[in-house]
């Protein structure tokens, strides 16, 4: 799951990025509104955390341009002024949710998870695929009721497949979703994570589509 974080304050941005990375999100962080639009045009994100007061281009403008281009990306707006008009303006400009600074990091993550769940069209907070259960809130994965221990990246790859059950994901798509800018992906790291997932959750969990990429296997009961 890859998040675009747009926050001009260095200390706050750094903190949010660290927090989101702890929750196994890949985070791209930009500090200017115009750069945010450029990043959104060039990359696929699952959600965006957007501060409103930004240099370059303010958050509302970014939001309006994003929506005008038809991008339905879930956007959570951060405002420092907890005033009603700011919230209303943010939501009316196309935000899906807002939070007022200062906020709880855990609440930010919970709201992001809710946004991601809604955008993927899933009703239940717990994702089920056959006998596999994934709880995004606790980041726990069970197979037939037994808890399976996954690394952060393995969890991220599994979540990516579970939230795109019909899609064939190419290796570069998976890498883009796994890594933020500057985090070097090794030449075959995606294969390594898929290998680990097959070992822990059964070989049929992810199916290789030769020459095209991978997709989620048929659910097993």
């Amino acid at each position, binding site marked *: 799951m890859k998040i675009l974080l747009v926050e001009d304050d260095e200390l706050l941005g750094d903190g949010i990025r660290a927090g989101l990375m*702890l929750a196994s999100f890949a985070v791209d962080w930009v500090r200017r509104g115009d750069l945010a639009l450029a990043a959104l045009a060039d990359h696929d994100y699952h959600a965006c955390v957007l501060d409103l007061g930004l240099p*370059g281009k303010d958050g509302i403008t970014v939001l309006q341009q994003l929506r005008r281009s038809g991008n339905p990306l879930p956007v959570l707006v951060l405002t420092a002024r907890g005033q009603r008009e700011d919230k209303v303006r943010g939501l009316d400009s196309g935000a899906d949710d807002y939070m007022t600074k200062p906020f709880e990091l855990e609440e930010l993550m919970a709201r992001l998870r809710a946004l991601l769940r809604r955008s993927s069209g899933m009703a239940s907070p717990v994702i089920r695929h056959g006998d596999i259960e994934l709880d995004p809130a606790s980041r726990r994965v069970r197979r037939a009721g037994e808890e399976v221990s996954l690394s952060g990246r393995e969890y991220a790859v599994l979540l990516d497949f579970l939230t795109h059950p019909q899609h064939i994901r190419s290796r570069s798509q998976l890498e883009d979703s796994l890594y933020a800018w500057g985090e070097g992906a090794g030449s075959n790291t995606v294969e390594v994570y898929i290998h680990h997932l097959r070992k822990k959750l059964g070989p049929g969990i992810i199916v290789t589509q030769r020459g095209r990429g991978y997709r989620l296997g048929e659910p097993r009961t």
Partner: protein
Amino acid sequence: MIRASHAERSPSVRRRLMVTVYISVLFLWLLTGWLSYTRAQQEAEELMDGHLAQVAHLLLAVVQDNEQNIAPLAERLASVRGSPDNVYEPALDFQIGVADGTLLARSRDAPRLPILGAAGYSDILRGEEAWRLLNLSSDDGRYRVQVSQAIGLRDRAALEVAGQTVLPLALVLPALLLFIYVSIRRGLRPLDTLAQAVSARSPDNLEPLVDVAVPAEVRPLVAELNTLFGRVAQVLESERRFTADAAHELRTPLAALKVQAQVAMLSSQAPMRQKALQQILGGVDRADRLVEQLLRLARLDPQRRLEHADPVELAPMIREVVALAATGHATADDAVQLDLPAEGCTVRGDAELLGIAVRNLVDNALRYAGKQGLVRLVVEPNEDRFDLWVYDSGPGVPDAELAGLGQRFFRGRDQLEEGSGLGLAIVQRIVELHGARLLLANRPEGGFQAGIVGLPS
């Protein structure tokens, strides 16, 4: 409370007006009354004197032709008395005689006075009684007549006349006073209405007074009030914005601190926790600087002029400030070039505040000039004052944002440098307090210049 006691000392316009008008009206009224009274008295005296003369001439004429019958005629004449109830018919007394003073006849109550006195009017006091006399002699000089009136009676008549003249005046007085009272009250009522309109306002209603009908004289006052309302509203609005901005500026570092603290708590890896804790320390320093700047502005704001103005030697102060500023930036030691007058420059002002102003300008210049940039600080005499300029080789400021510099919390649109947007606002205040001006401009050859122009020496 100087104002309160001042207000107590100046009575209300209404009371002052009433007292003044009443005193002048009463004074004029008394003067008029007294003048009418005395004039009426005099006129009455003259009338009665005329009456005396007529009677005297009549008596002389009667005697001239009736010397033989004079005695019985005198009896009859003496019995002609005025009506005792009517003060305008006072009793007439007379003595008639011949040229040598022998009396021919006299009325019973006439004073026994010699009738040989000089012709004409005279006042005589005889015993307890005072008399007004008229002595006349006939044209041939054979007969003399003396007509007399008791002055007491005459005075009663004169008083009556004068009193009747003054009476209407006295009757009119209460009506006049009442009329004045009502007029003043009515005339000043618009002021009461205005006072009510102002006092009935809620403290947050600073709209101009428009629906109050006031006379032309009060209109300038209302206009001034409205101007004042406008200014107060502006001040309140700017205070409100300042508070909102300050809250916003404090909220971001607080949010950052909170997030970093939560990262430190959530993280299971020591390096990550360590980094988050480091960030917290940095954030606390930043919030501390911001609070310090806010407090400084708050302290500077209410001042109208400097509390301490002492001679300040600029050169050593600038060297010290620049040395301090340079250590805070990752720049070469000689990044700031100084160009100070050789003969020294002493200005009048507050050394600490001037130091803060110079420090902020140099900090800005160093920050925006960048690592390879150059900063030059120049002090030059300007007539009997001094100008202080800080030049930097940085990118300058977009023209559209120049006007916003110096406003509180103003930050450039493209600004990623850490800063609260208070530094130049503080410089602006300090410069104002010193009676100088802050000039900010892009240099035509590139870079930026900030000048404190007109420091008093």
